C-alpha cells in the first residue's frame, strides 16, 4: 500500500484558518478506504513555516506527496513542491484542485517538481494514481484526468475524466485528520449573523456540485461540468471553460439522506453546533430537483432533532446552518422552511444594483429580484449577506451611483470586491491578452498577485483603471456623491465624452455579445425546473 502525505497549502494568510479543506478531507478518506497509508499535514491550519514542512517531508518514506487547492494557494503550493523535492526526493508529487485544473499546462511548467496533475474531479483519478504508484507504474497517461510528463520531455494530457454521479457512494470526509480542536473550532465564528457569531463548533459540508448560472467572473473548478477538452492554439489538447455560446453544466447533488447522515456523523463524533454549506448555489439544486431538495434536507434536520432551540443565553441546542442563495431562484416558501430548520444567514451574490450591469454578467438576476429576495430573506428571519462587486466591464458612473443609492436605502454595509478574472472564468478567457498585458506578458505574476477579490489585481473594466477603481470604491463607501460627480466631469473631459452621453468606453459589439446570452439565461431561469431547462441555459446534457 502506498504511503501518502497530503498537504493542505496555506491560503488567505491575512485571516485565521476557518475551513477544513473539504476536497482533501474526502480524498484522504477515499485513499484510506482503498487501504493506503495516509497522513495529512494541514499547513494552512498550523501555519508553522517552512521548517515544519521540511520536517514533515522527512518524517517518513513517502511514496506520494499530494497537494492542491484554489487558485490563490499558488505561492504556497510552489513552495511546498520545492521543499518536497528537496526533502523527499523519492516521493511522486501529485497536484490537483482548481489551481491546477484551470491552467494545467502552465502549472506543470511553472512548478517543475509536479510529476502528475489531477485535472478536475479527484474522486476516481486520485486513487487510481495512488494504485499505479503503489504497483510501481508511472504511465499516468493511461489514467483519465491526468496531465503528466512525457519520458522524453513535454506534457501529456490523458482523456478527460468523466464526473462521478453516484455521489452518495463517497465516504464522509476524514475530518479527524485535521486539527479541529486546536484550530478550526476556535475559528468557528462566522460574523454574518447572530448565530454565526456564536458558533463554537462549526464544520462545513458540500452537499452539491455546480451551479446552473453563468456569471462571467465565476469559476467552478472544473467539477461542475464546466470543463471541456479542446485543442489549443498550439494544437495541444487543453482544458476549456465557459465561453460565449459554449456553456456546459452537470448538476449533481447528494441525496437528503446522505446529507442527514453526514450531519449526524459530524454531530455524534464532533459535537458540532453549526454547519456551513459550501455549495456554490443551494437554490440551483432546489430548483433543479423540482423544489424538493431543500425541503427534504430541512425535513431531515427536524427528523434528526437538529432544528435548533434557543436557550436563554443566546446559544442553542441543535445545529444552525448557513449557505448560499440566489436572488431569482429563491422563493418565499423555501426561505421560511429553511429558517424553521435553523438557517441563520445566506450569501447572495447580488453583485450590483444597476440593471445595465446585471444584464451583462450572466447571473440571471435583476435589480428587482435582488430587492425582492433581500426583503424575503429578512422577513423569513434569515440574514442576507449582500455581496457586491465593482469594476465590471461596463461599470460606469451611473452604475456606481445606483449601487450607492441601494446601499443607502437598504442599510447595506459592504466593502465591494473588484471584478476579478480568476483563471477558469469566462472573463479570464475573454480578457486573457489584456490581463497578461497588465503583468508585462508574465501570466505567472498575475497568478501570484491573486488573493481576495477585495484587493485589486487585473482590471477588466473598460472605463476605469485600477487607481480609479480604488478611489471610486473609497468614495462609494463614504457615500460621497459629490466627489464622484466631480470626478465624472474630469473623466468625461479626459475621454472626450460629453455630458448626457453614457459614461462608457465599452464598444457596442462587446455589450451586445454579453446581452445575447443574458436573454437565454433569463428565459431558462423562468421555467427551469429540471435538467432539460438548465440545459437550455448552458447547452449541457441532462444527468438527472
Amino acid at each position: 500500500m502506498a504511503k501518502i502525505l497530503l498537504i493542505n497549502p496555506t491560503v488567505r494568510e491575512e485571516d485565521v484558518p476557518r475551513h477544513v479543506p473539504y476536497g482533501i478531507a474526502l480524498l484522504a478518506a477515499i485513499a484510506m478506504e482503498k487501504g493506503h497509508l495516509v497522513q495529512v499535514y494541514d499547513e494552512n491550519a498550523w501555519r508553522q513555516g517552512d521548517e515544519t514542512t521540511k520536517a514533515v517531508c522527512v518524517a517518513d518514506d513517502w511514496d506520494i506527496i499530494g497537494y492542491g487547492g484554489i487558485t490563490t494557494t499558488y505561492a504556497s503550493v510552489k513552495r511546498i513542491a520545492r521543499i518536497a523535492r528537496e526533502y523527499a526526493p523519492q516521493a511522486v508529487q501529485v497536484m490537483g484542485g482548481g489551481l491546477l485544473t484551470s491552467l494545467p499546462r502552465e502549472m506543470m511548467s511553472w512548478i517543475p517538481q509536479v510529476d502528475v496533475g489531477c485535472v478536475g474531479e479527484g474522486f476516481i483519478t486520485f486513487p487510481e494514481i495512488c494504485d499505479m504508484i503503489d504497483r510501481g507504474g508511472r504511465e499516468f497517461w493511461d489514467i483519465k484526468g491526468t496531465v503528466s510528463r512525457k519520458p522524453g520531455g513535454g506534457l501529456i494530457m490523458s482523456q478527460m475524466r468523466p464526473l462521478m454521479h453516484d455521489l452518495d457512494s463517497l465516504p464522509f470526509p476524514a475530518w479527524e485528520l485535521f486539527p479541529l480542536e486546536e484550530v478550526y473550532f476556535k475559528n468557528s465564528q462566522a460574523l454574518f449573523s447572530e448565530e454565526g457569531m456564536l458558533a463554537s463548533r462549526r464544520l462545513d459540508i458540500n452537499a452539491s456540485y455546480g451551479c446552473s448560472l453563468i456569471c462571467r467572473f465565476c469559476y467552478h473548478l472544473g467539477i461542475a461540468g464546466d470543463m471541456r477538452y479542446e485543442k489549443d492554439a498550439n494544437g495541444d489538447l487543453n482544458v476549456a471553460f465557459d465561453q460565449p455560446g459554449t456553456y456546459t453544466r452537470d448538476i449533481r447533488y447528494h441525496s437528503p439522506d446522505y446529507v442527514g447522515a453526514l450531519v449526524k456523523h459530524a454531530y455524534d463524533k464532533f459535537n458540532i453546533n453549526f454547519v456551513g454549506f459550501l455549495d456554490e448555489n443551494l437554490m440551483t439544486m432546489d430548483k433543479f430537483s423540482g423544489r424538493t431538495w431543500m425541503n427534504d434536507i430541512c425535513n431531515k434536520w427536524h427528523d434528526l432533532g437538529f432544528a435548533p432551540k434557543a436557550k436563554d443565553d443566546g446559544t442553542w441546542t441543535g445545529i444552525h446552518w448557513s449557505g448560499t442563495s440566489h436572488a431569482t431562484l429563491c422563493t418565499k416558501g423555501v426561505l421560511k422552511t429553511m429558517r424553521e430548520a435553523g438557517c441563520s444567514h445566506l450569501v447572495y451574490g447580488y453583485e450590483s444594483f444597476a440593471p445595465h450591469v446585471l444584464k451583462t454578467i450572466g447571473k440571471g438576476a435583476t435589480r428587482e429580484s435582488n430587492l425582492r429576495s433581500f426583503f424575503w430573506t429578512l422577513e423569513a428571519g434569515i440574514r442576507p449577506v449582500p455581496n457586491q462587486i465593482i469594476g465590471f466591464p461596463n461599470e460606469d458612473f451611473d452604475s456606481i451611483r445606483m449601487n450607492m443609492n441601494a446601499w443607502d436605502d437598504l442599510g447595506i454595509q459592504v466593502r465591494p470586491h473588484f471584478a476579478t478574472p480568476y483563471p477558469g472564468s469566462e472573463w479570464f478567457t475573454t480578457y486573457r491578452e489584456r490581463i497578461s498585458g497588465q503583468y508585462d506578458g508574465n501570466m505567472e505574476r498575475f497568478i501570484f498577485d491573486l488573493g481576495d477579490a477585495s484587493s485589486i489585481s487585473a482590471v477588466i473594466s473598460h472605463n476605469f483603471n485600477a487607481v480609479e477603481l480604488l478611489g471610486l470604491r473609497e468614495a462609494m463607501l463614504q457615500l460621497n456623491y459629490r466627489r464622484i460627480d466631480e470626478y465624472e466631469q474630469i473623466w468625461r473631459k479626459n475621454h472626450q465624452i460629453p455630458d448626457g452621453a453614457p459614461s462608457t468606453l465599452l464598444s457596442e459589439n462587446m455589450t451586445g455579445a454579453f446581452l445575447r446570452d443574458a436573454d437565454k439565461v433569463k428565459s431558462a431561469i423562468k421555467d427551469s425546473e429540471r435538467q432539460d431547462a438548465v440545459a437550455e441555459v448552458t447547452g449541457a446534457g441532462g444527468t438527472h
Partner: protein
Amino acid sequence: MSNDVLRGNFKTRDKVEIKQAEETLEDRFEMEAKKRLGGSIAFVSKKKVMWDTDKK
C-alpha cells in the same frame, strides 16, 4: 489534544510536533490593532520595519 501535526491512519517513523510559538505581547497588540485599523488608529508593524533604509 495532541501536538502532532501529522494525522493519519498509521504511526509515522518520526513525530513532528508544533513548536507552540508563544504569542508575544507584540504579536497580540499588532493583531488587535490591525482589526481596528482606520479612523484614528494607525500603528507600526515592527516586523515589517526596514531598519536599514539604505537597502531600499
